[in-house]
Structures are given as C-alpha cells and as structure tokens.
C-alpha cells in the first residue's frame, strides 16, 4: 500500500507554461503533465514521473530542467554544488538555458543535497550481481 500525495499542480502548471513558451518540446505530448506524474510515493520519496527525489524544490527543478532534457540526465549524475553550477552555466552558454534568477539557489541546494558526489576508491566492487545457474554449452 503506497500513500499518495499531491504536489501543488497549479504551481507546476504555471512553471511549465513558462518553460514551454521558451523551449518547445520536440515530442508533442511532453508538454502536458498527466495527473499521474504528480503522484509521489512517500515510501522512498521518489517522484514516479521523473525519478527525481521529492522535496519542495522539485517543481522548480522539473520546470526549469526537464523541458529540454530527460530527468535521467540529472538522476544519473553526481556533483558538488559548484559542479552543478558549472553544468548550469554550460547549458546557459551553449544550450539556450535561460537565466534561473532567484530560483537558481533553490535548484542548486536541491541538486547538491540529493545528487552529491560520493568519494569512491580507484575501483568499486562489482555491484548488483544477479546470480544464475549457468547451463553448460
């Protein structure tokens, strides 16, 4: 049993309308968020539509970031606040990302908190091994 809560859908709609006036999604249909996408699982606090961690800055991140690229580009990356800032600057200089204005601090706080770089060694152990019985050929 998953409990479901709603983000303020009006806020998302407002942010998205602004986004899509700048950045027309090439895939028609992306420009509308279904009500499903506003469902969050409290169990792991992951937004089911995007895979992003839920907190109050999530609507800003969705609105400013996923208009042009997949949320997967965020969830697979890890960086310090400074590192995320440099990615934003690169997108502004070369990829037509707009000025994030006063939202930038909140967005950077969100990214630095939930997608921070972890220290790893020179090589990790093999991860997520799915054991199976090998049939001899």
């Amino acid at each position, binding site marked *: 049993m998953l409990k479901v809560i709603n983000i303020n859908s009006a806020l998302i709609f407002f942010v998205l309308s602004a986004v899509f006036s700048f*950045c027309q999604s090439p895939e028609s249909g992306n420009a509308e968020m279904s009500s499903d996408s506003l469902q969050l699982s409290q169990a*792991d606090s992951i937004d089911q539509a995007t895979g992003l961690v839920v907190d109050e800055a999530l609507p800003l991140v969705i609105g400013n970031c996923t208009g042009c690229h997949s*949320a997967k580009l965020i969830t697979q990356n890890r960086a310090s606040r400074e590192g995320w800032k440099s990615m934003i600057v690169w997108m502004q200089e070369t990829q037509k990302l707009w000025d994030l204005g006063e939202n930038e601090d909140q967005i950077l706080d969100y990214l630095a908190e939930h997608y921070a770089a972890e220290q790893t060694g020179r090589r990790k152990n093999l991860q997520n091994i799915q054991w199976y019985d*090998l049939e001899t050929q």
Partner: protein
Amino acid sequence: MSTVLGAKIVYADHMPAGLIPAALTENTAPFALEGKHPELVVLNDRPWNVETPPHLLDDPVTAAETLFVRNNGIPPKNIDLSQWTLTIEGESAQKKKVYTLEDLKSKFKNYTYQLTIECGGNGRNEFNPPAKGNQWTTGAVGCPEWTGVKLKDVLKDVGIKDDAVYIGYYGQDTHLSNDPEKVVISRGVPMHKALEDESLIAWALNGKDLPLMNGYPLRLVFGGWPASTSGKWLSRIVIRNQVHDGPKMGGDSYRVPCKPVAPGTKVPEEEMCIIESMPVKSLITYPKTGARIDEGQPLAIRGHAWAGDLSVQAVDYSIDFGASWKSCKLQAPKNRLAWQHWQAEIDFPEKGYYEVWARAKDSEGKMQPMLVPGWNPKGYLNNACHRIAVMVV
C-alpha cells in the same frame, strides 16, 4: 518501457539496475526502445542515450538491435530518400558539389567493412570525482558491418586543396531547444584519418538500411576513433584549412588534458587536446556476469578486443585479481579496425567467489590497466579491464 513489455511494471522503482533498462520510472511520455533489444539500458530518453549489456554483444558482428545509441539531439523525421543530398564544400574544397543518395551509390565503388565504433565517454561511470554527462558503463561500443563509399573517393571527386587539414560534418538532427538555427554537433577528423581506406560514408548496417537512431539514411564511420566523429544523418561535409571548429570540437568536449593531471584538477581549455585514436580495450561477452557453476566444471569464456587505430596482439585473463594471467586464443580481425574475437577455458581450483578479468594488449605493447586510468575532467577513455563475477559451488 512499459509499452515495450506491453504491461505496467509494478514497483519498477525497486527493480535492481542492470536487469532490464535501468532507472525505470513511469514516464509521462511513453518511451519505447523502437528497433532496439528491450534489455538495452536507457541512460537518457531525451536525447536517446542507450547502452548494451556485455552479454548482448556476444555476436561476432553487432546486430542493429544491440548497437548502442548516443544522440545529442533529436533525429530528423519524415525522411524522403529521393530528396536527401550530401553537399561537399569548404575553404579547402576546390568546388562545391551536391550528391543524391543515388549518385553516391552508383558513381563510386561500394565497400563493406566491419568497423568498431565506441563512444569516447564509454566507462565514464567509474571516474572519481565523477564527470558530468551520460554515465556509460561498458556498453557504448559495437562492431557491425558498414556498407558505403570511401570518403576519400568522394573528397577527391570534389577536389582537395593543398592546404586542407581537417574535415567537419553537419547532420540533420535538431537541437533539444528546438531552435532550427542551432547546430547540435559538428565534429570531424584530420585529413590523414579522412583519407584512410576504411573511412566510409555509409548507408547500410549489416546489409540493411541504417537504423534511424544510428544515422539513417547516411552517416560517416571512422573505426577506432570516438564515435562522435562518425556524424549521423549526414547532409554536409566541409573540407577545412584549419582544425574544424563546430559545436563539440572545442572546450572540454571530446578532449583530455594534454599532460596527465591529478583527479579533480581544473584544466584550462588551452591545455586540453582532442581525442584521436581510442585506447586498447576488451569485453567478456560470455558468460553473463553472475554465473554459478559446479566445482570441477570448466568454464568457457569469450569476448572481443579492439585498439583504436591499432590491432590487438594478445588477450589474457586472470581469476586472481591480476596476480597471475593466462593467455586466450585470439583471432585476427576481419579487416583493419574491426574488433577481434578471443576465447579461453578456465579451470577453477576450488569453490568460492571469483572475478574473471580480461586484459588486451595492443600491437605497440600497451595493455589495459586493471584500475581506472588517468582522471580527466569529462570522464573519457576509461579502458580498465572488464570484470565478471563467477561463483563455483
């Protein structure tokens, strides 16, 4: 993904990575891996960045369904083959010339080569501190057969001026921002690579039209160099009297520090050098990692090895974390710049957990490192040994 499986995946969020497409979430826009094997791993669905698990690269010749996709923008839609043209021009071209697809196919001799293409960022996920970008593991590589015409035949038909140093490509993909004026990516190679026998303008993969996501209807193929040099949806080639300066030629893109740096170093732009030939590398494509076998049962292993512009002279395997190595049987490449198949049979001394590591050596004597090689700001060129886990029970 649900659309591929034909059903909703309940608890998709809890699915372990590496089973079938990782990072599965219910997407607002249904995403189907059209034309691709459903077990490919989706790193990014806008733009498409999709990699192949090692066991799906077991075929000697990579199938269209299992060839990775690294897109920077949105592929063109509603392609009309009869209207598709390739323009050759530039300050070091003797004239401007336009070819239809039919011109290319009929005016020049057609060639088929098996050529390895690998993304410069393959293996990026292992760098520490992490590098931004798509976090490729091992699967941004493939070696299909490509059919087309030699780039040099077409360039010579146009005429190359003496001051030519580089070629650059332009394709028909559109920028993610949907700005029609914005070029997504425009990279290239120096003339010596452009004029090699195996450098192709290709329209077919394994005897069939290129898959849309891999450049249909026309692309460049430069075996052994970062796949970003092999421009897709090809419509224009410029012959330059300077190093090409299109988007993703400058800055940190597809460049590494000219001199080795400590992990995390900020490297000034002028101290970054363009990646050319890729380093020696190999994959274990059989068995799939996680194999459980009985004590006393020999294990057959196999895979491929490649080395950029060079060939591979040896492949060894280790089951004791590199303390000792045994040699594998290695085949010659089908043609220059094709990967080479290797195989071996392993006897394990006792029950327990093992890792099988494979290590290739190129024709100049350079081997793959066992650990992640020199750090670089964008996480390119990780050619550390591939490893699989085996349990003897």
